[in-house]
């Protein structure tokens, strides 16, 4: 199961890299969103995909799942959500004022 997840993470990272390297701002933002999902999956996987009880004292004996990676992912998802929302608004404003969403046309300072 872990190997399958890691391969999935790899595929997602590959897609994200492809998107981030493109010229359109919107594709780049999609790329960063996919990249963040890939990293969240990775966090879950390296914590170990165990089957077990809920980690509450006194519930049951035997193996229990590690709750920490899930807590980390929860925080990371919230942060990535906020940043993506900000980035989408910023990109929209930038499109309105600069009149282009092509990153290669957003070059240096010479045009001011």
């Amino acid at each position, binding site marked *: 199961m872990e190997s399958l997840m890691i391969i999935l993470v790899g595929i997602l990272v590959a897609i994200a890299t492809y998107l981030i390297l493109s010229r359109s701002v919107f594709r780049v933002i999609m790329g960063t969103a996919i*990249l963040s999902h890939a990293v969240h999956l990775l*966090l879950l996987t*390296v914590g170990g995909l165990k089957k077990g009880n809920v980690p509450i004292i006194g519930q049951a004996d035997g193996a229990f799942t590690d709750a*920490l990676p899930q807590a980390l992912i929860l925080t*990371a998802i919230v942060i990535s959500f906020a*940043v993506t929302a900000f*980035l989408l608004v*910023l990109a929209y*404003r930038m499109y309105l004022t600069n009149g282009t969403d092509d990153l290669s046309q957003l070059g240096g300072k010479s045009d001011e």
Partner: protein
Amino acid sequence: MNNIIVLPMIVPIITAIFLVFLRDSIKLQRIVSLVTMIFVTAVSVALLQLIQTEGILRLDFSGWAPPFGILFVADSFAVLLVLTASIVTAICLIYAFSTIGPRHERMFFYPFVLLLVAGVNGSFLTGDIFNLFVCFEVMLLASFALIALGGEKFQLREALKYVLINIVASWMFLLALAYLYGTIKTLNMAHISQRVAEVGQEPILTLVSLVFLIVFALKAGLLLFFWLPGSYSVPPTAVQALFAALLTKVGIYALFRTFTLMFPLNPEVTHTLIGVMAGLTIIAGCMGALAGQDVRTIATYNVVIGVGFILLALAIGTEQAMAGAVYYLIHDMLAKALLFLIIGTMVLLTGEIVVKNMSGLIRNYPLFGWLYFIVMCALVGIPPLSGFIGKVLIGQGAVETGSYVLLALGFGSSVIVLYSLLRIFLASFFGETSISEEEKKPIPRGAMVSFVLFALCIVGLGVGAEGIAVYVNDAAYTLVNPSVYVEAILNTHE
């Protein structure tokens, strides 16, 4: 357990939320934000004293004993930086009062500044590496908003690039965290240090530390500073000064913590690499400062040189060099803020950004000119001022360990700093004045007050170096002997 450790982060956040409701009363916003920063400064002074009497302080949130919960740790290194950051922000706020304009003030300028400080202080104080990531994000989101605030064409363009680069860096941070958790199953910095010492720094851990190195190097502008000149020159002057003083320093702080506390065991790889990167940063920064034609570019490349110089000390790694680095970090935060404020005011007064097109400013504004002279001397390291002691101590450390190449690079960069800043001084401040008496704009009084306060801090840090030597030496001692830090966190079995 001491609850006041959390105040430098929580008070700015609460007042920032409070200020959102005071959107239209600009006067009240100014007073509240300034009072907040003065309060945080007072708290950090009190913390600094407390550490001297009680040793390293820590606060376990909700009483979850380490290594299980999130915690804040206050050692001398962290609190010295919190104190400096709070002073810098308070003075930059005074500058902003008279220059930023009601349009920015109405668009939540003060709340964003307070959130930025909360993120910075949180990053300095946290003892949990995932919490460091969260505080980084708090700081970065505030800085994204501050860069874009104003909505000018070039601001939005540079903000977009800055945001994209930082998002990619943040996900690399998460990647490193994932591998770290996968290998040693803990995120508490002291606990990581202990585990790494127990199992020895295996190649996989060194690899993880190198990913951290890339991430923090991006944040600190160590070698990977390509984003820095663009994004540091577009926001309003007060914001530029805050960025120059605070943002890169958080990255530097994280690098110091990572490679003195958590992964100090494989210095042949990591510390050598940091040394090489610092050297290259200095060289590239010098080239940028020499080639720059406009004052803002020269100032931003001086930030890059400063980063390289401080990280030389990390590569050298002796106690003396660490003490030098702490001195130099404090000095650099104060002096870079003043440099950016003065450069920004020059642009404001003349409407020009190219060095050659300004002339004779010192005739119209004598005090302003001599303040620039002071900050220039401080950055070069002329003895009575603040840069001197840091440079001497780092230099001594380099001689001790025989790293003469680093020594030559570090001190060679001082000459370039002197040349690049003196060029501005000679071309823009001396010569025939291009501003006649009638069209001379006055410098706002608040701006002048903030310059003088910064200059006093710089002179005070240089002359009164003996006074803070106790704290700096304590900070350096803890950095070189991470066991002190680990002991203070993990001896909970009473």
